[in-house]
């Protein structure tokens, strides 16, 4: 989000100057607005006389109309669920002895991620790579199958913009009222309504930022500290930064984030094929042979329209009015479309639908294709491997390294000693007892100053010194050059013993 904001700032401070942006206005605007150009942005390159070239297009405000329907309900459902998880999760407690009691806590200074019953240690951070791989493949899989589902229903940009539009709608009223309010000069009503909208946005943005910060520190403590002005600089900065980005992205930038800034929005088109579900206007049905036409007298009934060659589309413009991206779905599949499906809800004539390019051309849509099956298999495999790795994680780790300076020590009785460093880490949030012994070197004894059996505090890491000693070598007897350390859990955890074979050095020719 930080990079997103920077892009936005760069776009904002380079008005009329960025020569690399070649936008010109072309498509007639169907959104109500007062701009002279009355055009929507479309990228088509250099064209026309020079004075019509706009290197930077000022944002044309979009006033989406509210709509009721199947997909609106689905979107609201996803939103409620996502917000319930995001805003409430940091408040969930989870009892852990000797560790933080927050159910989900990413404790960076303590180098531990707590996720319910799972404690992720630094050395387990590769799971994050697994999670990222799964998310990436899931995106490929879903997008290949059903288009920009992520953008339309789940992306936080969509969710927060949706919420901000709802607030706007609640305070200022429906689309015409909002347009009217914007055109008005600044009177008392406008000040109050605009102020209330911005104030509520700011409140939501602040709570969004604060909630994000709660995932990294103890939530109740943070809220109190925040109010008393004694939270850490990082906490204030994170909260402020996310408040600012949420406000700017969801309140002011909105669809521009998807159109100009978001790389996912663009590269998802690369995952589309002829069988991918897209939201499309049924042009055959809607346009007929003579195109769409308003339902004036004499062209109202289906029979009359058929006789005149008009399609079923009465050009009511509802599909355009509800669109949060400000596009006309009847122009075909466009890169701006986030597949939110609100135009499906809006069309009373059932002319906009989830379909595929093949279906539009009268062929069957194939859901089982090498691409979807391939992504599905990779997704299942990655999920299985990650699950297996998490479920079979060791409750503790132990490693042994030889101290190589000196390689060996000659003792007064003629025996030979090697020294090792043993690193132990209790990964549990409970104490455990670990026992260490050696195998595989005849006559060798282990000396750890009584720490051969050691109790480890919850999540304790410790380095111990181990000395392995063999009696004097008689004659030309061959000494083994390896010794195996066996580190086993004696109390507090059940796990397979860790066995590590390390070199044992003795003087040559002795």
């Amino acid at each position, binding site marked *: 989000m930080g990079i997103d904001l920077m892009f936005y700032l760069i776009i904002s401070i380079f008005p009329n100057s960025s020569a690399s942006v070649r936008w010109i206005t072309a498509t007639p605007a169907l959104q109500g607005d007062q701009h002279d150009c009355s055009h929507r942005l479309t990228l088509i390159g250099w064209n026309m006389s020079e004075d019509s070239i706009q290197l930077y297009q000022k944002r044309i405000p979009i006033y989406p109309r509210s709509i009721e329907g199947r997909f609106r309900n689905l979107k609201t459902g996803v939103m409620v669920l996502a917000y319930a998880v995001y805003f409430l999760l940091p408040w969930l407690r989870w009892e852990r002895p000797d560790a933080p009691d927050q159910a989900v806590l990413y404790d960076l200074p303590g180098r531990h991620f707590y996720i319910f019953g799972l404690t992720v240690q630094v050395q387990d951070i590769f799971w994050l790579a697994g999670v990222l791989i799964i998310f990436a493949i899931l995106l490929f899989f879903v997008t290949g199958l059903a288009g920009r589902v992520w953008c339309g229903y789940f992306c936080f940009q969509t969710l927060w913009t949706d919420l901000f539009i709802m607030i706007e709608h609640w305070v200022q009223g429906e689309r015409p009222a909002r347009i009217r309010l914007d055109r008005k000069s600044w009177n008392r009503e406008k000040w109050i309504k605009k102020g209330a909208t911005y104030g509520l946005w700011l409140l939501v943005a602040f709570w969004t930022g604060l909630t994000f910060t709660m995932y990294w520190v103890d939530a109740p403590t943070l809220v109190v500290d925040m109010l008393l002005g004694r939270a850490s600089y990082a906490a204030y900065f994170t909260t402020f930064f996310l408040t600012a980005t949420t406000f700017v992205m969801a309140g002011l930038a909105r669809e521009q984030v998807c159109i100009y800034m978001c790389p996912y929005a663009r590269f998802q088109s690369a995952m589309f094929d002829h069988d991918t579900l897209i939201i499309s206007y049924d042009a055959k049905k809607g346009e007929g042979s003579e195109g769409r036409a308003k339902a004036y007298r004499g062209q109202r009934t289906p029979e009359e329209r058929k006789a005149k060659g008009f399609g079923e589309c009465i050009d009511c413009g509802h599909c355009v009015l509800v669109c949060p991206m400000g596009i006309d779905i009847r122009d075909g599949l466009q890169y701006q479309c986030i597949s939110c499906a609100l135009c499906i809800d809006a069309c009373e004539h059932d002319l906009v639908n989830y379909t595929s390019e093949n279906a539009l051309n009268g062929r069957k849509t194939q859901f089982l294709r090498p691409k979807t099956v391939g992504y599905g298999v990779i997704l299942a495999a990655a999920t299985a491997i990650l699950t297996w790795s998490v479920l079979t994680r060791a409750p503790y780790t132990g490693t042994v390294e030889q101290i190589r300076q000196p390689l060996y020590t000659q003792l007064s009785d003629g025996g030979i000693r090697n020294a090792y460093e043993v690193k132990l880490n209790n990964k549990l949030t409970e104490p455990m007892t670990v026992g260490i012994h050696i195998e595989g070197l005849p006559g060798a004894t282990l000396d750890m*100053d009584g720490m051969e059996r050691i109790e480890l505090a919850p999540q304790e890491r410790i380095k111990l010194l181990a000395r392995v000693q063999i009696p004097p070598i008689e004659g030309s007897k061959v000494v083994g050059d390896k010794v195996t350390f066996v580190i086993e859990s004696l109390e507090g955890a059940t796990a397979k013993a860790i066995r590590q074979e390390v070199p044992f050095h003795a003087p040559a020719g002795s």
Partner: protein
Amino acid sequence: MSDNKLNVRQQSGAVQTTGHAWDGDLQEYNNPLPRWWLWCFYGTVVFSILYWFIYPSWPVGQTWLKGFGTVDYTITDKKTNKVEEREQRWNTRALLLADLGEAANNEQRKAMLAKVRVANYDQIAKDPKMMEFVRSVGKGLFGDNCAACHGRGGQGVVGMYPNLTDDDWLWGGSMDKIHETLAQGRMGFMPAFEGVLKSEQLDEVAAYVLTLSGEAKPSATSERGKEIFHGQIGGCYYCHGADAKGVPSQGAANLTDKIWAIADVPAQKTLEDKTAVLKTFIANGVNNTRVMPAWKGRLNDDDIKLLAVYVHQLGGAK
């Protein structure tokens, strides 16, 4: 030329001119700097002036403007352990010291050091956390102060500096004795026997000493050497003891074990060579080249304590 692109732009009002006209129709476009650029530029001017006041900036003759900015930091005197608050004009070295002083690791280190300071040697040896701390800090201290002679791992150099990793201690291997050695220093000494003993007698003593640790089998020569060793002529037993096991209070070596600190006997292949190398040392003695300096006064008490524990565990902690 009059209806070219430029004039179209000019007529459409896209670009203003300065208002002057030369030679009839020669005009100059007015393309002012973008406002945001101009304000950034003014910003840098203001910034640089503020900078001169806060940070070191302009050279002035032999000196320079030092700025009013300061850095506060605390510094611990290595010898006295006294913590001193200091304030300096702004500079990055003081800034680094301030950062290091405030680091979380430094707080942990101080807490552990306070624990080690009050604990006795037995308590330290039995506490895994304290030993971990001693090994970690001790490694640095040893590297800075001891490794120059004793080697990075404490393995020493035969004939020069004792090996600290074995279980043989010339001056005693308890933590208290090691502490004493560190604090007060030691001076190893063995008189030269050249002139006192004849060459054959030196050979005989060397042969006897080799039998003590099993390097050679007893022979008629070694028997004669034994008489010299334990008799009035040689008088070796004064320092090395009647059992030849050394006397730690004298720093006299144990001659019955397998460890050779001065004469590199194990490196010699034949008995003649072993005898020869040993004979050289008996003849010449060990004079004041084997000096361990006293560290009290050079290192503070904490560091000496840490080093005593560290060296003790290097040698097997027995």
